[in-house]
């Protein structure tokens, strides 16, 4: 099985980083596959940025090893950085440069043609009139957009993005999500960190949950969602029919014409069973990773720390 998988874009083995006595990363082993969007999820201070800085060679692991694009993170960090697009968390730019100058400058240093610049500026709504202004006058969101554009403008095979939607308004977050979808369709790989669950749920293929430097879970997002209990509520014309035989349905509560229940897994069997002219209203709440994890790690206070 292992042989059939294409080589991992990011591969870590027992990666550990201590700052003095503080354990920032503990024995992290994971793979990021080509063409996927990999979410790295955890509360603030859980080690997300440490992981990213270690992958880019800014920090050296205390023990363990890792490779990015097949290159060793300690020996070949310069080459890794050259081939990767990176958005640091809490981006800072030179205040006295204009947005366009900042992008030009970083691209000059990077040395690969900025083939995606125009497309990115358009999709993230950074017109030339805004790019001409000095970064000093930018809002938090505009700076973040410059950060995203600079990370992706040279169309890197791997983008490492530290909390990419921080400071973006909901509309721009959506634009960013669709951008991520397109990058995946074009075979680019993205490693992104986030503390926002719905975001990871929306864009990621797989997700790793980290807490206090420990890897708590590494799951396929679709699998998680499929195995998650959804809350359903229904309203009938007349009395509610008997539904207890449907697979996955539990906790059925009937109150006159209203009924609530929880549904585990696939929704199709349930939808077929309830299909009836007397059904007036149906609500299936979207599956939430938070609850999925709560379920997986019930009793483990780790997952409660992850905020939605």
């Amino acid at each position: 099985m292992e042989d059939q998988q294409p080589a991992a874009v990011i591969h870590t083995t027992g990666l550990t980083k201590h700052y003095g006595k503080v354990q920032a990363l503990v024995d992290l082993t994971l793979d990021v596959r080509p063409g996927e969007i990999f979410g790295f999820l955890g509360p603030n201070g859980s080690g997300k940025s440490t992981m990213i800085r270690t992958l880019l060679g800014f920090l050296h692991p205390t023990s363990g090893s890792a490779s990015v694009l097949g290159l060793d993170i300690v020996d070949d960090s310069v080459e890794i950085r050259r081939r990767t697009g990176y958005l640091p968390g809490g981006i800072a730019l030179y205040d006295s440069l204009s947005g366009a100058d900042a992008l030009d400058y970083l691209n000059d240093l990077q040395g690969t043609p900025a083939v995606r610049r125009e497309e990115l500026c358009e999709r993230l709504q950074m017109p030339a009139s805004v790019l001409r202004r000095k970064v000093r006058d930018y809002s938090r969101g505009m700076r973040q957009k410059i950060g995203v554009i600079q990370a992706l403008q040279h169309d890197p095979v791997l983008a490492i993005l530290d909390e990419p939607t921080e400071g973006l308004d909901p509309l721009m977050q959506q634009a960013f999500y669709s951008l991520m979808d397109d990058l995946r369709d074009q075979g680019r790989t993205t490693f992104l960190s986030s503390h926002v669950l719905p975001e990871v749920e929306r864009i990621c293929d797989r997700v790793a949950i980290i807490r206090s430097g420990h890897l708590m879970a590494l799951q396929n997002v679709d699998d998680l969602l499929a195995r998650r209990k959804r809350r359903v509520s229904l309203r009938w014309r007349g009395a509610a029919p008997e539904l207890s035989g449907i697979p996955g349905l539990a906790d059925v509560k009937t109150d006159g014409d209203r009924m609530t229940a929880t549904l585990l897994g696939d929704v199709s069997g349930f939808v077929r069973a309830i299909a009836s002219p007397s059904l007036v209203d149906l609500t299936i709440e979207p599956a939430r990773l938070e609850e999925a994890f709560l379920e997986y790690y019930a009793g483990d206070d780790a997952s409660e720390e992850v905020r939605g």
Partner: protein
Amino acid sequence: MSGLFPNAWTVARREYRQRVQTRTFLIVTAVLALVGVGIPLLPVAVRLIAGDETTAVAIHSTDPVVQSQTVVALGAILHGDSDGTRWEITAVGDAAAADVRVRDGDLDGLLTVSRAGDGELAFDMLTEAGPSSQWLFAVRQATTQLSIGDRLVRAGIDPTAAGGIFAPTPFEVTPVDPDAKSPEETYGAAYMMAMIMVVLTFMAVLTYGQWVAGSVAEEKSSRVMELLITAATPRQLLSGKVLGTGAAGLTQYAVVVAAAAGGFALEGLVAERVLGDGGSASLESVNLWVLAPFGVFFVGGFLLYATLYAGLGSMASRQEDVQMATGPMLMVGMVGYFAAFIGLNTPEAQWVQVASLIPFFSPYVLPIRMLLASIEPWEWLVAGGLMVAFLFGALWVAARIYSAGVLLYGQRVNFRAMWRAVRVNR
């Protein structure tokens, strides 16, 4: 390993533009240039203000012969002085009236001359001038000369022959090396020039080194560094920063030095126009072309210090820590500076010769030897070779400190951690 260029140029260009375009830079440079022009012209201005004043001294004596002789002799001695003071020496008969005029400020002084019983001349000056007054000092010297002349006449020496007694003795200095650069008459100017160069070098290295360190720390604390370090290598960023900020510093420096040189060049002209005499073009006698090779060492030394300043600046997380982090460079610079000042008086000493070859000190010590002693061709080669070697060494060490330092946030400046970084970090 990626090459240094073109990224180092890209960084240098931005650093240079960003700094030179700031209002602070323009204002500070303009102010310093004005000061540069002003300092050489200051003596002219002082003379202009003081020059119109005439020092009026009245001579009184109960003995009319002594009085007239004193007026003539004192007048001759004082007018012979070339410092430009104008004298008005008059004889007064009414001491009480003159006394009042001194108190009113009409007269600068009333000099009462008397001959004591043993024949010695005695002088008593009534004046409001303080003990440090220059004209009072001049009069005092003149009276001493007058008194000695008077003693010689009383001892029976012909007054005409007495003049010859005060004539200067011929004294020539012949240098062993006929090419030696310090013939007696220009030594003073050369000494002065060497001192100015030591001070200017010291100021340039410290001021602009501090700029480099501060700018590194700023990029680090604002976290722009994280982006830069992804796009370029630490060595490229470091060299670019040193070249760009260094060039901006040297631009300011060149403007100020040019302004000062212009001031010195104008000094004679201005003095002639304003004061009607040639003044003293103090540094004209030094052949400035002998300083050309020094330019190379100035730039080399400057880069050496600036590179290490950049490396150490990366250890600071905040602007407040920059001073502490760059402390070692200040100390090394001070050692060179003081060594140069001591060396000014012993330019031929062996330790000065050795110091002038060591890269950290050569920018300070070389101008002294160039102006006040002589340097063998092999010494130029050794000093130059060592400078180049140290520059590369400094770039290597600084790049390691830098790549370790720039991303360590919020940590106290710690030289043990730095040393570890230098050994381990790639």
